């Protein structure tokens, strides 16, 4: 047997001494150690693992034994130069503290004191609860893995009617405000006194739209030279035409330019 002749390689070094034998109750193949370390989600998880290995209840937390093993384990990881999260060392310190408190004689006056293990037991229980909850969550049916959503498509030949935003009276008034402001600058040119007929203006608008044979911008219907009253007459004529359903006011986008168009049957 060749292997028997070979010098035994140390598993690791503990307190400067070579560890040739695997620690009892904690057999983990050395090359698997690195892998296993990744599987622990922190010191609480490692502690739970050690407790379960002994088939013990968390409530009977045998602090001395567990501390010993925990420290052995952590030391081994350190010796193997595995990157060790600081949390593991904090836990080692906490275990050592609990251990020392347990070893102290119980003073009469301190009888009321809580078991030093209680807080750690509570944390272990809480962690175990969520460790299990995470497992159940993983086992729940979920999209991508167990659930497939059923979908249907719209008939691709369907033509979408572009939904034009409704033009509000407010927007009409705002547009008129702009036109009025512009008309104001021309006001002093206004000399005509002839009455402007709304009806006539209505016909003009219809005619203009008929000639253009398309939609025209709202502002194109105003003759600024006519001044404010001219603008008002044109505006009233537009409202009349809208009311009589002869034209409609449209807007390509919300807040966009207003257009007039003939109402087609």
């Amino acid at each position, binding site marked *: 047997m060749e292997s028997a002749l070979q010098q035994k390689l140390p598993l690791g070094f503990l307190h400067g001494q070579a560890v040739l034998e695997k620690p009892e109750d904690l057999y983990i193949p050395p090359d698997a150690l690195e892998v296993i370390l990744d599987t622990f*989600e922190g010191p609480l998880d490692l502690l739970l693992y050690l407790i379960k290995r002994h088939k013990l209840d968390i409530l009977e937390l045998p602090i001395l034994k567990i501390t010993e093993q925990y420290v052995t384990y952590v030391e081994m990881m350190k010796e193997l130069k595995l990157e060790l999260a600081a949390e593991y060392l904090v836990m080692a310190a906490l275990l050592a503290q609990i251990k020392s408190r347990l070893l102290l004689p119980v003073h009469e006056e301190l009888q009321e004191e809580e078991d030093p293990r209680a807080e750690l037991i509570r*944390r272990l229980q809480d962690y175990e609860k*969520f460790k299990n*909850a995470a497992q159940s*969550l993983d086992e*729940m*049916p*979920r999209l991508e893995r167990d*659930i497939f959503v059923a*979908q249907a498509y719209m008939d691709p030949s369907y033509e979408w009617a572009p939904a034009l935003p409704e033009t509000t009276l407010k927007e009409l008034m705002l547009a008129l405000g702009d036109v009025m402001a512009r008309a104001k600058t021309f006001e002093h040119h206004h000399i005509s006194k002839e009455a402007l007929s709304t009806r006539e203006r209505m016909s003009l608008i219809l005619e203009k739209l008929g000639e253009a044979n398309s939609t025209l911008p709202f502002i194109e219907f105003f003759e600024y030279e006519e001044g404010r009253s001219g603008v008002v007459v044109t505006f009233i004529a537009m409202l009349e035409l809208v009311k009589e359903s002869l034209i409609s006011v449209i807007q390509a986008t919300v807040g966009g330019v207003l257009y007039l168009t003939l109402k087609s049957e």
Partner: protein
Amino acid sequence: MPGRRVSDEQLQELIEAAIFVSEKPLTKQVLKDTVLADIAVSNERLTRALDDLQQHYLTRGIRLVEVGSGYRFQACSSLSPWLSKLWQERAPKFSRAMLETLALIAYRQPITRGEIEQVRGVAVSSQIMKSLIEREWIKVVGHKEVPGKPALYATTKQFLDYFSIEGLDALPKLPDRQLEKLTNLIQDPSVRELSE
């Protein structure tokens, strides 16, 4: 204006098609505001139509189910092992760290990152929080009134949708065992000698 009348069959057809073509689950309210906007349908009638549709699909390979953000159609779960072969890539596996973090947020929400770390005993990686937020399973719902004002996390409707449940009460119950035993242990000084 809600006025048009439709037969029960027409109503079912419309609801069925709407849920099928919609990319996201539809709630009763969304159905009423969109496809049923100009149809006179009472809440009772809508519920009945959905119930009837659910019944109708019980004998097919598709089921109508209600999840967190509404109704959707999904393949009958008993067919999943075969259906999964349609996709080359395997569904993503989640790390234990991510699942534990998600479980804590689901059961203890609203919860801060610090509180999650307290229970898990290790730091929660930013990567995990980021990917949970990116998948829209969790969101910040506020800030805790303590120094530093840490963000409070909660699960979303998308989280419910992903696990195909209607609400958080459909999650597996957390065990509350051993609490009594712990209290006894703490109160009984003789137990101290137990450890070696």
